[in-house]
């Protein structure tokens, strides 16, 4: 059961809307992180859910109610949402307790009275600020202010809590602590939360689901693991983690490249089912039904869809289409949760290969007289304490990056042999 669902929401006017047909399902009680670079529209998305912005078209359902649909725009005050903005936005003329109580309705006088009430005390204790009830916002630190803002948002028992880069203004250690606390708090309260951030590490670490946004579209929606391990496009891959891209040649189920022949999975990329211009949706859509064949061949929907299917265990009415030669298509589509069409392009097609740095295993080079292709030299070291990123230059000239745990640290200039662990991903060479 999803607490929030959005269908085809378009926001903005003119040729270039800010949000182009967003569809999203947020399951009840989960924490969804929306990540993307600056300007991708994630804040607009959040504000649209809140009702602070009117959508041009599309539907938003919150809980049992349709809050945005054709002809209907429910005002923000009626939506029962909690809102935590980046700058905490505490009312400077009210005390901490009054700020929290403000959400209980009735204005300032009622807030004063309610400030003493149990609910407020409970919330203050929940965020660990019981002793600061009478302070004014000016006397609080950044982290404390954010906690008060969260408590205030929770005070009225909203359907969903929306957080707009709430930890952005804090220092890293505090940020780490606070987000764990917030995660726990929301879980305790059984509260559904949507968090907007540009920090992918933050998103991956606390969210149940991650939606990756770019230019007003959701490129991928899935669990952090899915998004990280099977990013829909090379761009998503780079956004959520360090990536190594190498050119390669597809050979049914493997790629041939600078790192040798590697077992690979074909990722046709998002957008196979159409662009926003045609009003098609990007992102996850509700799943029920089964993969189906039709006379034109087999169609594969967007990887996001596949992620959805895999996660929920349900199946979707999908038309699976491949790019490229119909003769080369091999579809294995079934009504189970491992439906995975191991399609691919024709052999010898150029592809872009994604290798994660942690997939590269390095062993010290032992000169046996033969020159293995996978010999490399360490050219740079980025040390973070718990691990290090080593830049490598292969004999062939190709450069790549490997992540090694701290004990495996090698100095610049060390000679190593590179091996790839696990399966890599192959994208169309022209993919973005």
């Amino acid at each position, binding site marked *: 059961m999803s607490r929030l669902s959005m269908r085809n929401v378009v926001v903005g006017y003119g040729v270039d809307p800010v949000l182009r047909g967003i569809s999203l399902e947020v399951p009840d009680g989960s924490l969804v992180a929306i990540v993307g670079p600056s300007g991708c529209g994630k804040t607009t998305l959040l504000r649209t859910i809140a009702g602070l912005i009117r959508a041009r078209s599309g539907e938003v359902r919150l809980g049992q109610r349709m809050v945005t649909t054709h002809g209907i725009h429910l005002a923000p005050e009626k939506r029962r949402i909690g*809102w935590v903005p980046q700058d905490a936005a505490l009312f400077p003329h009210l005390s901490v307790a009054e700020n929290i109580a403000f959400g209980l309705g009735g204005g300032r006088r009622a807030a004063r009275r309610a400030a003493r009430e149990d609910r407020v005390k409970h919330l203050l204790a929940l965020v660990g600020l019981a002793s600061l009830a009478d302070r004014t916002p000016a006397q609080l630190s950044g982290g404390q202010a954010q906690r008060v803002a969260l408590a205030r948002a929770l005070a009225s028992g909203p359907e969903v809590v929306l957080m707009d880069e709430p930890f952005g203004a804090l220092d890293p250690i505090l940020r780490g602590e606070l987000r764990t606390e917030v995660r726990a708090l929301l879980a305790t309260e059984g509260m559904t939360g949507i968090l907007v951030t540009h920090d992918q590490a933050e998103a991956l670490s606390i969210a149940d689901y991650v939606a990756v946004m770019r230019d007003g579209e959701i490129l991928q929606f899935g669990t952090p693991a899915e998004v990280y391990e099977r990013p829909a496009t090379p761009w998503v891959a780079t956004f959520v983690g360090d990536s190594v891209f190498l050119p390669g040649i597809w050979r049914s189920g493997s790629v041939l490249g600078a790192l040798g022949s590697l077992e690979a999975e074909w990722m046709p990329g998002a957008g196979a089912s159409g662009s926003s211009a045609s009003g098609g949706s990007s992102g996850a859509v509700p799943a029920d039904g089964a993969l189906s064949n039709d006379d034109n061949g087999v169609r594969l929907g967007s990887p996001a869809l596949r992620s959805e299917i895999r996660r929920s265990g349900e199946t979707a009415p999908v038309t699976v289409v491949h790019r490229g030669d119909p003769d080369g298509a091999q579809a294995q589509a079934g009504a189970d949760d491992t439906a995975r069409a191991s399609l691919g392009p024709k052999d010898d097609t150029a592809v872009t290969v994604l290798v994660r740095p942690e997939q590269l295993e390095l062993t010290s080079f032992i000169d046996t007289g033969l020159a293995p292709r996978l010999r490399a030299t360490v050219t740079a070291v980025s040390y973070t304490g718990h691990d290090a990123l080593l830049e490598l230059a292969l004999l062939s000239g190709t450069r790549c990056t490997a992540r090694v745990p701290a004990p495996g640290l090698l100095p610049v200039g060390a000679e190593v042999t590179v091996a790839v662990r696990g399966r890599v991903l192959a994208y169309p060479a022209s993919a973005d």
Partner: protein
Amino acid sequence: MSQRVDERGADLAVEPITVEPVPAPAGKRPPRILLILALLACAIASIPLVYLIVRVGSSGLDDAVTVLGRPRVPQLLLNTVSLAAAVTVTSVLVGVPTAFVLARTRIRFRAAWTVLAALPLAVPSYLAAYGWLAAVPGMQGFWASWFVLTLVSTPYVTLPVMAALRAGTTGLDDVARTLGRGAWQAFWLGTWPQIRPATLAGALLVCLYVLSEFGAVALFRFPVLTTAIQQAYGSSFNRNYAAILATVLVLIAMIIVIAEQTARGRARRRFGAVTGIARHRIVDLGPWTVPAFALVAVVPALAVGLPVAVLFARLFEAETLRALDPVELGQAILNTLVLSIGGAVIAVILALPIGALAARYRGRLVRLIESLGYLALGLPGIVVGLSLVFFSLSVLPSLYQTGFVLAFAYGVLFMPKAIGAIRSATAQVPTSLEDVSRTLGYSALQTWWLVTARLARPGIFAGALLVAVTAMKELPATLLLRPTGTDTLAIELWSRTDVSAYGAAAPYAAALILVAAVPAFLLSGAGRGRTDGTSA
């Protein structure tokens, strides 16, 4: 985080520290009720304009050609525009450095200097002119008018710029310095954009004030449109002539208002509002101490000190010192207070929707509403007065010649002064606070009352004070609209200087300055320090 990349000035290679994101155009339409209220306020403010149109309309093209074809008209136009421009420029040139010294330096007796800086607001222009004429009998024409009008209108620039400086940050200056720019350039790049809107707003007020001013230019015998209008009403029994000239004045005012809006709009697009607690460096004066004292002392001394001294000198020199009637004086004081406070209340009520609208929303309609609101400020008081005679007799005759209509006239006349203060105070309330309030269950109207208005209260109050202090000095509309038998301090003063009863005028002049000094003092905000960055 912003949806659109902000325009960067070509010059500026510096990233602003925090910029309030420009609200996304999608869905940012002003709520209907606000628009309706603002339009209503606008309509009321346009009563004088409607009156002018009716009069001009009834006169026909021949009259217009006759009046505008008179040989004197080009001269009048030139005089009017050049005087307005000159006074505006000097007010800015004096006002901004004065504001800087008062807000950003470690000057001794800062609070006292600040009060003094605001004090010229309490002096009517005709009083200052009279004082100077008595001291320097040969004073006349353009230079005299320019000089005295600059003295009395500089506070309109000094006060808002001071407020902006207090709320601003020197962070941008510092960054510019690290990039190799000198101190002046750093100021230009960093601080100037922050105070530019306030400077423009103040300059607009000064410009419109000079356009509509009558007392000083009459005393200095400098022929401008207002003197011609006054003459036309007085000697030409065809009131349409005067209306035609007044329309020319309105057109000039309109051009200026639109120019200021355009300039302000551009500034806003470039820089948005700087949020967060403002920290700025306070500068030590060192060798600049004496010049700084001189700078902050010169305007109050010349605008207030000299006229007061002269009047009191005359007081003791006049042969017949007519007996002062304390009852009359007391009654005049009371009338002045009540009427100006009433006017301030009405002005604020009218200005609130317009200021709230202009603070948050953009668009052509918003700009139009704001412009219309400001136009009345460019009109001579006699026009506004007559328009309200016309209006109240047509609409509500039983209220005619009651104090209410006069207070209403003040409200209409001076509402624009409140608009600026309300607009900037509202704009400084972060929109995120309003968003939060909405999501917490409060409707737009409730949010406005509980959050925005509450936090903008000091600015709203400042707007009211500005209206009150101006209303206290008002003359021509008061002459026309006051209830028979009711006199304000300004009226009493004027009637005495009019017949050269200078000795008898002195107590009234003193009373007027003292009474008006109170709001002027409050406006200066002396001793107020703001750390929450939420008020004007």
